[in-house]
C-alpha cells in the first residue's frame, strides 16, 4: 500500500512537470504578446520602458532558460502577477478557488449520492418504469450541452418564475463584504443545480451496469434461493460491490467536473476559477492562465490519485498485489 502511494506520487510529479512544460510551450507560442497585452491601450509608454519590461520578464532569453526561470519561481510559490487584475496570481486564484470549490463540492456530493441511488433503483427494477426513466434521463443529460442546460435553467427559474437572480455571486452594486450568506446562497443554487443535474447521468449509468452485473451473478442467485429478500441482497451483496466502483468513478470525474464548472460559472457569471480562466485566456493574461491550468491539473491528478488509492484500499485483490 505505501509503495503504491509512493509510486503514484512520483508519477503525479512527472505528470505535473509534463503539464507545466506543455502549458508553457503552448502559451509562449501564442500570437498574443504578453507585453502588449499588459500595457493594453496605454499609448504613453516609451520603447525604452517596453524594452525594460521585456528584460524584466526575461522575454529576451531562450525558451529553455525562460521555462527554468518560471518553474523556479513557481517552486518558490510565486506564480507571477496577473496582468488583468494587477495583483499576484496566487491572490487572484485564492479568492476564487473557494467559490469554485464550494460549487464543485456541492455538485460532486449531490450528483454522487443521487446518481448512485438512481443507478441502484434502475438496476433493481430493470426493464420497468423506474429503469426506463433513469436510463432516459441519463442518456438525454449526457447528450446535453452543460452551458445550454444552465441557460434553460435561467430561462425557467429566473425569467419565468423569478425565483432566482440572473447571475453573479451576490447582488449587484453591493460590496462583497456586505453580501449576506442567504444572498450568496440565492446566487449559488442554479449553478450548483446545473452541475449536479449533469453529473448524475454519468454515475447513474455506471452504477446501473455494475449493479446489474452483481444481481445477475451466481452468488446473488444463490442468496435468493436461500430466501434473502431484495433489501437483504442489496445490503449483503449489492452495496459493497457497487459503492466502490461508484466512488472511484466519482473521483475520476474531477476533470469533467472542472470543465463543467468553467461553463456553469460563465453562464451564471459566478466569480469562480472557471469564469476567471475564460477571462484570462480572452484577455491574454498569461500568468493567470498558466496558474489556473496548473491548479486544475493538480486538482484532477489528485482526484485520480484518490481514486486509485480508494480502489486499492478497499479491494483486497489489488491491495495484496501492491
Amino acid at each position, binding site marked *: 500500500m505505501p509503495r503504491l502511494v509512493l509510486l503514484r506520487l512520483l*508519477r503525479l510529479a*512527472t*505528470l505535473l512537470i*509534463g*503539464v507545466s512544460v*506543455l*502549458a508553457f510551450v*503552448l*502559451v509562449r*507560442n*501564442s*500570437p*498574443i504578446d504578453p507585453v502588449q497585452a499588459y500595457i493594453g491601450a496605454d499609448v504613453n509608454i516609451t520603447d525604452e520602458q517596453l524594452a525594460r519590461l521585456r528584460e524584466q520578464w526575461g522575454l529576451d532569453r531562450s525558451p529553455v532558460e525562460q521555462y527554468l526561470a518560471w518553474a523556479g519561481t513557481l517552486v518558490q510559490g510565486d506564480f507571477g502577477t496577473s496582468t488583468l487584475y494587477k495583483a499576484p496570481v496566487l491572490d487572484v486564484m485564492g479568492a476564487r478557488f473557494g467559490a469554485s470549490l464550494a460549487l464543485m463540492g456541492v455538485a460532486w456530493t449531490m450528483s454522487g449520492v443521487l446518481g448512485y441511488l438512481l443507478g441502484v433503483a434502475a438496476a433493481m427494477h430493470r*426493464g420497468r418504469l423506474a429503469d426506463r426513466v433513469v*436510463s432516459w434521463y441519463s*442518456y*438525454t443529460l*449526457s*447528450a*446535453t*450541452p*452543460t*452551458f*445550454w442546460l444552465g*441557460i*434553460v435553467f*435561467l*430561462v425557467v427559474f*429566473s*425569467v*419565468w418564475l423569478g425565483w432566482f437572480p*440572473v447571475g453573479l455571486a451576490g447582488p449587484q452594486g453591493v460590496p462583497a463584504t456586505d453580501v449576506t450568506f442567504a444572498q450568496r446562497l440565492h446566487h449559488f443554487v442554479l449553478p450548483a443545480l446545473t452541475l449536479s443535474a449533469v453529473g448524475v447521468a454519468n454515475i447513474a449509468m455506471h452504477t446501473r*451496469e455494475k449493479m*446489474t*452485473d452483481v444481481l*445477475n*451473478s*451466481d452468488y446473488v*442467485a444463490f442468496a435468493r434461493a436461500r430466501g434473502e429478500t431484495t433489501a437483504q441482497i442489496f445490503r449483503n451483496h449489492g452495496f459493497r460491490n457497487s459503492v466502490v466502483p461508484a466512488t472511484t468513478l466519482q473521483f475520476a470525474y474531477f*476533470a*469533467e467536473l*472542472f*470543465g463543467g464548472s*468553467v*461553463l456553469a460559472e*460563465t*453562464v451564471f457569471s459566478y466569480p469562480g476559477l472557471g469564469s476567471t*480562466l*475564460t477571462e484570462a*485566456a*480572452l484577455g491574454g493574461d498569461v500568468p493567470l*492562465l498558466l496558474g*489556473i*491550468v496548473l491548479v*486544475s*491539473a493538480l486538482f*484532477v*491528478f489528485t482526484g*485520480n490519485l484518490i481514486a486509485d488509492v480508494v480502489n486499492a484500499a478497499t479491494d483486497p485483490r489489488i491491495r495484496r498485489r501492491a
Partner: protein
Amino acid sequence: MNAPPDPRLHSRSRPRPRLRARRDVVVSLSVVVLLVVCVIAGHLLLDDAALRPNSAPRSSPPGVEHPFGTDHLGQDLFTRVVKGLALSLGIGVLTAAISTAVSAVLGICAALLGRRVDGVVSWLIDLSIGIPHLIFMILLAFTVGGGVPGIVLGIALTHWMSLALLVRADVKQIRGAEFILVSRGLGRSPLFIARRHVLPLVLPQLLVGFVLMFPHVILHEAALTFLGFGFSPQTPAIGILLSEGMPHISSGMWWLAVFPGLALLLLVLGFARLGDRVRTVLDPATSNG
C-alpha cells in the same frame, strides 16, 4: 459470464436479442441519416436572405412564418440553427476522424513496439486525461489564436485517449497470434504487420470509436465557441447563437436560448444512440442496454 437469460427476451412477442440489437442499429442509423440529410439539404436550400437584417419582423416569437422565431435584428432563427448544425457536422466529422487516427497510431504503436514505447504512450494518456478537456482546448485555442484550426486541434487532441486504450488492449491480444509471429519470422517490418495484419482487425473498433466520439466532439465545439474561443461571431455556429441569445433572455426572448440547444441535443442524442447500438451488435459482451 453466465448471466441468467432475461425471460422477457424469450417470449414470442419479442425478437431474439441479437436480432433486436441489429434492428435497433438499423432504426438508429435511419434516424441519424435522416437528420443529416435534412440538415445538409436545409443548409443548401435555405436562403441566406433570411439572415439579412430587416427582412423580417424583429424579435418575433415562433410562428408559422418563422418556426423558431427571429432575433433582435430580424434574422430567421430556424435558418441559422440549420446552418449551425451543418457546421457542427462538418467540424465533427473532420475532428473525430483526426482523433480516431491518433488513437489508432498510438494504440497500435504502444502494443507492437515494445515496453518503452508502451510506457511513453501510457504516460501521454495519463497526461492528457489529467488536464480537464475544456482547459486543454482553451489553451490550444489560445496558442493557435482561435478559429477552425484551434477547434479542430484542441478537440482532436483531447478525445483520443479512451479509444487508444481500447486499441492497445485489442492489439495486445492478437500480437501473439501465429500469423503475426510467422510474419515477423519472415522479417516483415512492424509497419507492414501493423498495416496488413493489425489494422484490418481493429477497424471495427475504430469505426465504433469514431461514432461514439462524434457526439462529444460536437458538444465540445459548441462549448468552446460559446466561451468565445471557437468560431468568430460572424459564423452561424450553435455556440455563437446561444451566446448571442443570452443577453436577450431576460427580456423574455426564450426561443433564442432554447431552440439552438435543443436542435444540437437531438443531433448529439441520435449519434450517441447509434454508437451504443453498433457497439452492442459488434461486441455484445461489454455492453448492456
